[in-house]
């Protein structure tokens, strides 16, 4: 078993017994479900809208070279510098270089899962820069020195009391039970930072090929401030974020907001097409767009699972996943958790190390049903299981299946097996779940069906 698998099992074993955690997640997600269902019902036809989004993304991903080239040339024409990075370290070094060149001290950052993916903050802090997360949820988990719990709701696993204690400890604020008051503490702490920061770093939700723009979705206004006041702006995004046309946003913005958070559209959806243009009163003097591959092209090379690159990171599949709802986000030990994380992580970080994630699924298909771009998530989990075995078959399993095949193909042996099973059945029932049980890790939480007192053949014979 890989290290990651071992850690997953241990963490899952602990947290599934944590009733406080379960209560918190269930309450939060129930609120989400109510809001989402209400917004979904405002659509004239939700499933047809999903299908058209899936086809639009299919077009984008299957002509990725054309659209990326168009995007880059249009956005460069307005004075943006585009950097193409094959690996995480390459992207990290590119951004470190930009910040050094800017002679920056303070960096303010708005939410970007891609930055988590390449461990940008750690690298920048090692270089001695102060990096401030400005999204409230990200700000909270940054103070706690832990990764985001969920790709959309980073601090979903915390109660207001824990957050109040944290602020009291780290910021010296007075304790409070009011979410409003807690939010204002963060607002005051960050306000100066936007003005002081020399560099602002953002992620992006979509890259529009037709007009050469990125689109950033947020509720708080922190990304807008991050890209308004610092004199240098850096935007980091995966190459799969492409959409062909500006008008596509008319479909994708409502889908993202409805599936992701139960909103009609998110508070701020902002298009950026360049650094400050002549005649404009503010905005960065320099803008760097960093395009990240980081093995997305490996996923692209698998036509069966290529649609996993359609993902718009709405988080809907996490929210409905019975596994995620029980083991929580941190158990996965990955940047992208939940069903979509289980599908793509083996491609991004190695099949053998991460194949256990495809087994962390009941294959109920709730994720596929929830996905606004119709990614075939649960079939991809099955395919990962198949591919993992195909790449590195387990000899014990192969032997077991061989023996099974031999036995069921040899009637005499099969019958003999039945007789033996019936004789040892009482003993088996005694041993079930005890340390002497050879399959106790299975039977500890499950029942084996009892052996039938007579076989079908015998039954038939006796009744004739």
């Amino acid at each position: 078993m890989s290290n990651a698998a071992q850690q997953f099992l241990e963490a899952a074993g602990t947290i599934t017994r944590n009733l406080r955690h379960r209560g918190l997640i269930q309450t939060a997600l129930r609120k989400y479900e109510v809001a989402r269902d209400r917004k979904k019902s405002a659509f004239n036809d939700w499933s047809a809208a999903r299908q058209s989004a899936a086809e639009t993304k299919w077009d984008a991903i299957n002509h990725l070279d054309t659209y990326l080239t168009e995007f880059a040339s249009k956005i460069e024409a307005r004075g943006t510098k585009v950097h193409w990075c094959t690996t995480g370290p390459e992207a990290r070094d590119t951004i470190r270089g930009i910040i050094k060149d800017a002679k920056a001290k303070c960096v303010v950052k708005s939410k970007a899962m891609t930055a988590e993916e390449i461990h940008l903050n750690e690298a920048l802090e090692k270089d001695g820069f102060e990096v401030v997360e400005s999204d409230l949820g990200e700000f909270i988990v940054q103070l706690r020195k832990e990764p985001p719990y969920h790709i959309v709701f980073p601090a979903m696993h915390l109660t207001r009391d824990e957050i109040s204690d944290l602020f009291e400890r780290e910021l010296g604020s007075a304790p409070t039970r009011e979410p409003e008051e807690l939010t204002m503490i963060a607002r005051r702490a960050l306000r100066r930072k936007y003005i002081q920061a020399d560099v602002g770093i953002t992620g992006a939700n979509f890259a529009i090929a037709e007009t050469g723009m990125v689109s950033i979705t947020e509720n708080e206004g922190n990304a807008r401030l991050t890209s308004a006041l610092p004199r240098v702006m850096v935007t980091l995004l995966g190459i799969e974020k492409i959409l062909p046309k500006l008008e596509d946003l008319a479909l994708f913005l409502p889908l993202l907001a409805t599936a992701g958070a139960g909103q009609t559209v998110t508070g701020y959806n902002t298009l950026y097409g360049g650094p400050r243009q002549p005649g404009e009163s503010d905005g960065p003097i320099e803008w760097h767009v960093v395009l990240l591959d980081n093995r997305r092209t490996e996923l692209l090379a698998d036509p069966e699972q290529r649609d996993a690159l359609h993902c718009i990171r709405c988080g809907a599949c996490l929210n409905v996943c019975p596994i995620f709802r029980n083991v929580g986000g941190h158990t996965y030990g990955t940047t992208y958790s939940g069903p979509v994380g289980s599908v793509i992580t083996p491609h991004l970080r190695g099949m053998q190390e991460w194949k256990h994630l495809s087994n962390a699924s009941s294959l109920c298909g709730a994720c596929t049903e929830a996905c606004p771009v119709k990614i075939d998530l649960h079939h991809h989990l099955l395919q990962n299981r198949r591919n993992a075995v195909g790449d590195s078959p387990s000899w014990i399993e192969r032997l077991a299946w061989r023996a099974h095949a031999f036995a069921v193909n040899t009637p005499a042996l099969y019958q003999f097996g039945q007789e033996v099973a019936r004789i040892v059945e009482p003993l088996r029932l005694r041993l079930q779940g005890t340390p002497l049980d050879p399959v106790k890790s299975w039977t500890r939480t499950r029942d084996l069906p009892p052996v039938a007192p007579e076989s079908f053949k015998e039954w038939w014979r006796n009744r004739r």
Partner: protein
Amino acid sequence: MVEESPMNAQERILARIREALKVPAPKPGSHGHGGHGRDVAPAPVFAFQGRPVQVARSWLPPGGSTPQEHLTRFAAASAELKTDFRCVESEAEAHVQLRQIADSEGWARVASHHSPLTDAATTALARPTLFTDGGYVPDELEVCDVGITTCDVLVAQTGSLVVNSRTSGGRALSVLPPHHVVLARKDQLLGDLTDAFQRIEQLHGTHWPSMISLVTGPSRTGDIERILVLGAHGPKKLTVLMW
């Protein structure tokens, strides 16, 4: 394999993409059809002719088809978003309302930009005003009580409005002060997002501003126990005055 040496990073990534795309992928919407074999490319359940998004419009939440419907929907969406939406008879009436808000909130300093609508409004307000056109000191904008701007369009379907960095006073004016007031004419209100993006393309398509923002309600967060709080980092209040 792809050759490495003479190519720059861009060419390298594009080459990898082209290599990967040599094998076609099945069309979307074919869940569970055709088994799980690696080589099966099942037919989609259904597929659209032409660009799907143009058809998709009819499946989205509706925006209404008459100006009256647009108004009703925009008002309903605003109420839900906690946007203070006021549709008034005339510009003069809008100025009266604006002065009332200014008095009740005790605005000491106002920030705005130059345009016919905002100039008339700031004159009517007669308070110290910071104009962001041509540059400003961020600390001075930060202490203003309100940012007053125009907008490009408003969207009935979603209760949104669109500001941009060239004609709405820059990037920060509409998001740094604690109150954002938008002045708009009724004919700027459109039905849905598809209409809005078309209008934006007509307005700016030949000369894009560096930022275009679709603003939907005041700044908000649900990051603490999924409880809604307004004014996370952006404005706590959003007022739309329309005539």
